[in-house]
């Protein structure tokens, strides 16, 4: 996905899914074959570290704690008008208040801007990896995270302690534009595997990964790949000034598979859910354009009174050929068959009894 002269200005919309073809950028040192979403590989024992294609673990990125909040979601995917970072921060706050470790990979905004809104007790629980200041090591000061974006992601995996942990990626779009899609997916899968190896419990209950995705930036290929890795997908939208979250749940154990909720994020970053809208199928009239009666405020009258309407309806048009008219024409009338012309000559007329056409040889 890098820039290059002479390349046509079109991004490939189909990323390479083959794990081994990525030239060593895959995160797994064991060389396991098969990306997790292909369904290849058996179930395997949970405790063994080297299991090929263990689908449960790789998809165990997004557990669903038994709460009513739309938690554990993989991707608030949002658009320019309905931004999702505040929802991401609200979910981070909830995780931190629940006693989990929270690791944040910040690429798009500065650490100060991201931490704004959290109070000091929560801020002290957040472990922040700053990929905003110098992600590509242009400054050469030695302060940049080594290995670039992929190295930073892999370093995050290694540093999480055992126990419940939430990893927030702000944003997946930033990473997806700069890393090959397959490498990013592999790194995400590896994250859960390595965490499971370190901790005692199964990965599904231990690790929650939240990723923010800007919907419009990517084609269907990369978004489909990330969606298939995710247990829950939250798409943000809204109508009439109210934000809504459209939640798609791929492991519907306790929750319905498809749900839409109105929500708002309060200034202290707590989440306020307002239940599901039944209005999904009814488009709201735009409150800014009131209905206008077109026949009002005219200087002429467009309406008919009752009498006028009756007179109009009873009128027969002159060229309307009704059966009565037809009979009248077919029946010879009592009057003279030919018409007559009555002419009164005045003083200046010169009446000549001769036929004016008499000299014609007709």
């Amino acid at each position, binding site marked *: 996905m890098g*820039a290059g002269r002479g390349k046509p200005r079109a991004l490939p919309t189909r990323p390479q899914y083959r794990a081994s073809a990525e030239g060593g950028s895959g995160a797994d040192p064991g060389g396991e074959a098969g990306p997790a979403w292909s369904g290849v590989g058996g179930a395997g024992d949970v405790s063994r570290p080297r299991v090929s294609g263990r689908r449960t673990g790789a998809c165990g990125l997004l557990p669903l704690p038994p709460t009513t909040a739309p938690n554990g979601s993989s991707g608030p995917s949002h658009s320019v*008008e309905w931004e999702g970072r505040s929802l991401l921060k609200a979910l981070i706050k909830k995780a931190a208040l629940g006693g989990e470790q929270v690791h944040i990979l910040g690429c*798009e905004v500065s650490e100060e801007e991201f931490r704004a*809104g959290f109070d000091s007790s929560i801020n002290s629980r957040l472990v922040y990896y700053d990929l905003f200041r110098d992600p590509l090591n242009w400054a050469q000061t030695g302060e940049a995270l080594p290995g670039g974006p992929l190295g930073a992601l892999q370093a995050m995996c290694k540093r999480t302690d055992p126990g419940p942990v939430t990893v927030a990626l702000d944003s997946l779009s930033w990473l997806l534009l*700069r890393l090959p899609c397959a490498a990013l997916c592999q790194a995400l899968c590896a994250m859960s595997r390595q965490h499971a190896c370190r901790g005692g419990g199964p990965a599904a209950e231990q690790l929650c990964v939240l990723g923010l995705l800007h919907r419009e930036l990517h084609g269907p290929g990369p978004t489909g790949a990330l969606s298939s890795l995710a247990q829950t997908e939250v798409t943000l939208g809204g109508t009439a*000034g109210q934000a809504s979250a459209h939640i798609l749940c791929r492991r519907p154990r306790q929750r319905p598979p498809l749900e839409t909720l109105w929500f708002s994020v309060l200034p202290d970053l707590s989440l306020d859910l307002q239940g599901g809208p039944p209005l999904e199928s009814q488009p709201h009239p735009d409150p800014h354009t009131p209905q206008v009666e077109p026949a009002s405020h005219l200087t002429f009258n467009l309406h008919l009174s009752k009498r006028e309407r009756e007179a109009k309806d009873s009128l027969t048009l002159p060229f309307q050929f009704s059966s009565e008219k037809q009979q009248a024409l077919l029946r010879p009338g009592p009057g003279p068959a030919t018409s007559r012309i009555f002419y009164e000559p005045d003083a200046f007329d010169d009446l000549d009894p001769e036929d004016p056409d008499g000299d014609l040889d007709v």
Partner: protein
Amino acid sequence: MFPELNNLLNTTPDRAEQGKLTLLCDANTDGSFLVHHFLSFYLKANCKVCFVALIQSFSHYNIVGQKLGVSLTVARECGQLVFLEGLKSSVDVFFRAQAEPHPLQFLREANAENLQPLYEFVREALKPVDDGEAAWRCPVLLVDDLSVLLSLGMGAVAVLDFIHYCRATVCWERKGNIVALVHDSGDTEDEENNILLNGLSHQSHLILRAEGLPTGFCRDVHGQLRILWRTPSQPTTQRDRSLTYQYKIQDRSVSFFAKGMSPAVL
């Protein structure tokens, strides 16, 4: 600067905000009047301005600036304005020794992967002066425009990286502002431009979008301006604020009015 636009944006040169990225976008029309507005606005606000002008010559901007009440020549001489004239200096690239860095070096390189030299130029131009007196209020980077970088062979991600580094340095580190113009060709097949436009939209605090009228050209209404205020990280209980106005460009000013309320029509 256009006083009516200042009123719509609820800002004046004295009260200019800092640390913001403003995205200018035009679709089916010419949005360069917005560039002239912000150039004169920030010069009047006593900010140090670095203007990466890749589209027009210095004299063009100077002539328009004089109509709006600023002199770019004077600003450049006293050090307030650092002007990179793309049209002229792009030729210099080929007549320099290759080892010397040049902001438009990517024109010469076969495999230019990033715009780091251009970023270094901006960083150097907006470096705070350490002579004790705070001469200028805050640094401002103005780019006209970013779409031409795509046409010159850079990829969308390279341009996004350039703006990312500029944001980190100018907006975050030095509490300055960035204003950049991107064209929206409306062509859904131009994926690079769409990635650039959408990627910048997500990072912007203010988006000004000048659109041509959908019904075609008009003598009295030159286009429509959509203004979208965004707060990329702060929670808002409702969607970001958005306004739409129509405008007419005159010789020295631009007049704005609500949709359908052009003085020629009323």
